[in-house]
């Protein structure tokens, strides 16, 4: 088998003295969707920030497309072909939707290709076309998420990092956005690393999944198998079987380590 497009090996990242991620390894193959599931505060955002260069790991390596990229500045990392869709969308509020998309293509020089991709993201999210001249700050949360994904797409990256695209959105919108994430993966061959609390949506969209608990990966398997796992069913999909939950949880967690 070929080398994975992204390979993260044993990274440890700190906030001051606090170790937020404790030796994490994961990989993503070209063309796949990989998900990292974890509760609030598990360290999902920290992993993505470490990959994209906003945070520097104390230890470990991040290899992307054959190159070590840990501890480089985020604008540099982005130029290797890694686009980050940040948690909470982070659109440019006073720029129009179209200008936001143009900024997504900031590192590109091919005007024709940029124009084509602008049309392409408008076909995925027609509402953005309707709103193209509006300031992004006036969009609804769901529309801003669509814009953030489209803006990352405009860079024509080799891979996208998506930080909780479901955050704060209605179930209907979450479903719509996930369908389009999957379509982008299938139709554009876009490799994706998707971190989520919404295990149900993420497991349906992704090919491979990791489970993150307080800074450590405790499970990693194909999503098909993860969906069948009793632990996942109980703690992440909320499907309860028999037995006292608290006790089981404690026992289960022990077996993971």
């Amino acid at each position: 088998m070929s080398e994975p497009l992204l390979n993260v090996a044993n990274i440890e990242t700190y906030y001051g003295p606090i170790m937020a991620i404790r030796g994490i390894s994961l990989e993503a193959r070209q063309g796949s969707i990989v998900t990292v599931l974890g509760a609030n505060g598990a360290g999902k955002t920290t992993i993505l920030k470490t990959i994209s260069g906003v945070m520097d790991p104390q230890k470990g390596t991040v290899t992307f497309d054959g190159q070590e990229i840990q501890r480089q500045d985020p604008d540099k990392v982005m130029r290797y072909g890694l686009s980050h869709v940040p948690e909470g969308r982070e659109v440019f509020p006073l720029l129009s939707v179209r200008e936001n998309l143009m900024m997504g293509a900031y590192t590109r020089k091919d005007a024709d290709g940029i124009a084509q991709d602008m049309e392409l993201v408008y076909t995925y999210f027609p509402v953005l076309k309707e709103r193209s001249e509006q300031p992004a700050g006036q969009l609804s949360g769901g529309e801003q998420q669509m814009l953030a994904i489209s803006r990352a797409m405009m860079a024509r990256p080799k891979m996208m990092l998506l930080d909780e695209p479901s955050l704060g959105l209605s179930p209907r919108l979450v479903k719509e956005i996930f369908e389009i994430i999957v379509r982008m993966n299938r139709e554009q061959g876009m490799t994706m690393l998707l971190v989520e609390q919404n295990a149900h949506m993420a497991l349906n969209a992704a090919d491979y999944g990791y489970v993150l608990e307080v800074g450590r990966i405790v499970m990693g398997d194909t999503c098909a198998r993860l969906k069948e796992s009793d632990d996942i069913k109980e703690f992440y999909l909320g499907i309860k079987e028999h037995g006292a939950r608290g006790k089981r949880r404690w026992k289960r967690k022990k077996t993971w380590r």
Partner: protein
Amino acid sequence: MINGAAVGCIYALVALGFVLIYKATEVVNFAQGDLLMLGAFIAFTLIALMGWSYWIALPVTAVILAAFGWGLDRAVFRRVIGQPQFAIIMVTIGIGIIMRAGVSMVPQWGTETYSIDTPFSNKVVRFGDIVVAQEYLSIIAGTAILCVVLYLFFRRSRLGIAMQAASQNQLAAYYMGIPVKTVFSMIWGISAAVATVAGILLAPVSLIEANMGLIGLKAFPAAVLGGFGSIPGAVVGGLIIGIIEQLSAAYLPDGFKDVAAYIVLLAVLVVRPEGLFGESMRKKV
């Protein structure tokens, strides 16, 4: 009225420099007026001492000061960012004082006052019965042209929009591959160049001297009046303060001229604390 508007234009340009830097880096640059002063001295050197043409000296000086502003950011402000706002303000005040002292130590500059001959000196334009000195008109025209150029740059050019983007959301700008630190240095350069143009436009009607940068003390209320963070606000704020100052000099007892700016500012802030053009949107860093 024309004179007031002209002086107001100078305030507007200096205020615009304040606002550009503040929006991007949240630094309140009290050395803005001293950049104007340094620019005026360099223009004086090129024109009066070296005999350059005004039209060549103007862009050359602007470029020199742009490089100076850029360097100031790289050497100083990039390092202090993230320190408490108070400390950074002290740094800008300190740099202003150093510039003033430095300028008075240069042999051909010193603490004397100078003037430069410009193509507009000692000429007038007549509109019917009204006679207006060309020097004042040149300030207004120069400011108008500069504002249009800056508007087009920030609204239409890719780099200009990227500067706005970096000012609105620094982290997201990094994610787009925008070299945020370089962009901020460029904004410092632009602000310094704008202050320089203001200084050169001002030179024919005011004297060039080491303390001319104190004009920043009038431009600062102009920026606040406009809502500190709004570029059109800075321009309108500058004009309002310039005109009010001139009117109070004409119709009110002595002394009112210099406090008029602050009286207007206080009055506006009581009614509209966010300033005339204040934006309610908070910036994310």
